[in-house]
């Protein structure tokens, strides 16, 4: 049916092309420009070529029935009618102003190059005598002067008959063409033609098939309906007006389901008829030819009866004689064989059909279940990926915080390194100072030893003084009176010597104390120095270790950044995968839906084949033959 409908579309398109071409012809434009002037000469001048144009066009395009020119005010200016190789021109005086008509209103706002198509209506040509109206389609387009001014409208009326004829006869079903309201534009099953006179047929599509049904099929561009009673319907939309999908026609092809089986039923009926004839003949023959004939004939009759009942498992009659009965019997045998073969092959076909549809069903089920499994797996994968995505973002978060922490650690350890550097510098300073101090202290120690030398001298003096005192005493004891006086001197000297001894003792003690103090000082200073040296070593070690730490923190930082980048990439990849999976899932779902549709169709196929089988079962046949 698609072919037929494409014929309709092609017809419409051809007309559109033609009208476009005609509207552009300058002869036409000049005529239209001349008409309002009232200049008869001018008008006639242009009218002739336009007339000729149209005649030629009508000859080529047999379907064009009339051409009209209408001015901007709605006044029909000229009408050219072509009918049966005759061209007729009707001038303005005889033409009407159609401004008020809905038709004019529908075309008055047409933009340049736009073509309006009117639905089929009945054309009642005045000249027609048959009283038989035919379906036409009107194509209207605005006319523009070369300067771009709208000057009028061109309306070409084309016969729709040829278009509808393409629908032709259909042996096994009916083709219907309905307009958007549901009126039949064409019905191939009607024995009578549609009365175009009234511009509508008496029936509407909805009368037979319900409004709801019409709306449903109008909603889809094309499709198959098989669940409305005993019919199969296929339909297709035809948009006859440029892109205006509200104005649609519908082509519908309907077949009776029984039609498929009709040949078989017909055959059976035929067969019954034949058998009845045969029975009659046999009865006559038997009664004429008596018993000799009746036996074989009865045999034939019995076989025929059985066959009529549907039991094809009959033995061949194998009648041997050459007479008419033999011929009858042989022919009968042949016929039965033929019948058996036919039924067999039909049965085989129906079995094949059944098994095929079963196979398809099974396959579809498998596919369905596979699809379901796939869907389930995909759901799992999707879930896993979503989890992965989540954990990736977790890792990303964590690594971000690691980056932060390690940055902090890096910062802190750098600060720590700086602090220790400062500390080390200070300690070095202290060490230097300490060395100087120790030097001073050691010098002090040396000086104290020099004091010791002085002390030795003082002690010497003390000893010598002591000896003087002793010698004085000795002298004093020897010399009588003079000695006595000298004795006094000796005592004084002795006293002096004692004082000196005491003083030197004191000085000695003090110096010893000083020396001890200095020694202690030196020891302490050296200890302190050592302590500071150890401290400096420790500081250096700490600096090295901090350096390692800083280095380590840097590495950690870099690595954390790496991790962050990697997880980001991972997340992106994951979401991409997720999108892909979702697409796959959608695809599976869609294929599942398609499979369901196929399943439905297959099911109806299976039903049909079951019907067939049922019918076949009524015929009993030998399995082997």
């Amino acid at each position: 049916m698609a072919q037929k409908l494409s014929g309709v579309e092609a017809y419409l398109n051809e007309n559109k092309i033609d009208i476009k071409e005609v509207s552009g012809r300058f002869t036409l434009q000049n005529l239209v420009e001349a008409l309002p002037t009232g200049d008869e000469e001018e008008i006639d001048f242009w009218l002739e070529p336009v007339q000729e144009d149209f005649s030629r066009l009508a000859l080529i395009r047999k379907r064009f029935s009339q051409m009209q020119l209408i001015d901007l005010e709605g006044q029909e200016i000229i009408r050219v009618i072509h009918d049966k190789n005759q061209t007729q021109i009707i001038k303005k005086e005889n033409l009407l102003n159609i401004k008020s008509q809905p038709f004019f209103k529908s075309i008055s706002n047409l933009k340049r190059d736009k073509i309006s198509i009117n639905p089929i209506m009945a054309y009642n040509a005045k000249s027609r005598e048959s009283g038989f109206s035919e379906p036409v389609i009107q194509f209207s387009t605005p006319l523009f002067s070369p300067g771009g001014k709208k000057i009028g409208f061109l309306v070409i009326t084309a016969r729709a008959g040829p278009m509808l004829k393409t629908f032709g006869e259909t042996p096994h079903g009916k083709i219907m063409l309905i307009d958007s309201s549901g009126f039949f534009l064409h019905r191939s099953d009607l024995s009578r033609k549609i009365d175009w006179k009234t511009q509508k047929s008496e029936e509407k599509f909805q009368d037979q098939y319900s409004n709801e049904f019409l709306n449903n099929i109008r909603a889809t561009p094309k499709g198959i309906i098989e669940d409305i009673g005993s019919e199969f319907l296929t339909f297709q939309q035809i948009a006859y007006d440029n892109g205006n999908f509200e104005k649609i026609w519908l082509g519908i092809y309907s077949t009776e389901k029984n039609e498929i089986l009709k040949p078989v039923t017909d055959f059976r009926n035929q067969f019954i008829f034949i058998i009845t004839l045969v029975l009659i003949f046999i009865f006559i023959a038997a009664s004429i030819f008596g018993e000799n004939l009746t036996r074989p004939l009865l045999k034939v009759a019995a076989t025929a009866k059985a066959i009529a009942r549907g039991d094809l498992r009959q033995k061949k009659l194998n009648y041997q004689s050459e007479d008419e009965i033999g011929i009858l019997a042989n022919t009968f045998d042949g016929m039965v064989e033929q019948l058996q073969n036919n039924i067999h092959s039909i049965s085989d076909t129906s079995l094949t059909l059944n098994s095929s549809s079963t196979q398809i069903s099974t396959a579809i089920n498998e596919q369905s279940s596979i699809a379901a499994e796939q869907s389930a797996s995909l759901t799992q994968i999707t879930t896993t990926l979503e989890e992965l995505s989540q954990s990736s973002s977790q890792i990303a978060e964590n690594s971000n915080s690691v980056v932060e922490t390690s940055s902090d650690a890096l910062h802190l350890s750098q600060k720590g390194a700086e602090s220790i550097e400062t500390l080390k510098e200070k300690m070095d300073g202290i060490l230097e100072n300490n060395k100087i101090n120790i030097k001073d202290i050691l010098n002090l120690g040396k000086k104290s030893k020099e004091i010791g030398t002085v002390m030795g001298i003082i002690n010497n003096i003390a000893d010598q003084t002591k000896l003087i005192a002793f010698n004085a005493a000795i002298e004093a004891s020897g010399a009588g009176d003079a000695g006595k006086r000298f004795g006094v001197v000796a005592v004084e000297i002795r006293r002096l010597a004692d004082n000196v001894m005491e003083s030197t003792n004191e000085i000695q003690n003090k110096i010893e104390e000083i020396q001890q103090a200095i020694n202690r000082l030196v020891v302490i200073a050296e200890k302190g120095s050592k302590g500071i040296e150890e401290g400096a070593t420790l500081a250096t070690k700490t600096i090295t270790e901090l350096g390692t730490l800083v280095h380590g923190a840097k590495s950690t930082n870099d690595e954390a950044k790496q991790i962050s980048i990697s997880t980001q990439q991972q997340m992106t990849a994951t979401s991409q995968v997720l999108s892909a999976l979702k697409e796959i899932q959608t695809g599976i779902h869609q294929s599942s839906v398609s499979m369901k549709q196929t399943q439905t169709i297959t099911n109806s196929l299976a039903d049909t084949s079951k019907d067939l089988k049922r019918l076949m079962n009524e015929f009993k046949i030998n399995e082997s033959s």
Partner: protein
Amino acid sequence: MPSKKKSQEILEAIEEKQSETVANKNQTTIKLVIFTILNSYYAFRGESIKEILPAAKINRVPGVPNFILGIINVRGDIESVININNFLGLAERGTGTEKNIIIAEGEGVRSGILVGSVEDVMDFPENSIQPPLSSLNDKIKQFVIGETDYKEQSVTVLNVREIFKNILAN
């Protein structure tokens, strides 16, 4: 009316004391030169002693007995120096830390005696010198006058003349 003026009394007391001092002075005191030899305290009677010198370089004299250590230069004069350790029953060798030489004279002999150190030259009342302990060595006994105390140390008072006598006899 006081029998005596206080001042008178005081004066009398002083006079008494002075005569006492003189009397004391007239009491026999012995000047002792106290010295050490090898950490023991000894003493000579002051009358035998001429001078006390710090130890000086002793020039060895060839061909003399061991106890004669040599001669020394004392302000241009030459004195001999001897070691009396033997006479005291002590080890002959010195410590090398001897600090003083005591110039002694007696029995026509004049010589320096090397000692550890001279501690003091003091007057000792004669009765403070005890007779020597009988446990003392006979050998040394002949040289000991007696014993006394100095700074809580026991001091053996020696008779230099006896020592010199002994030397001359040999």
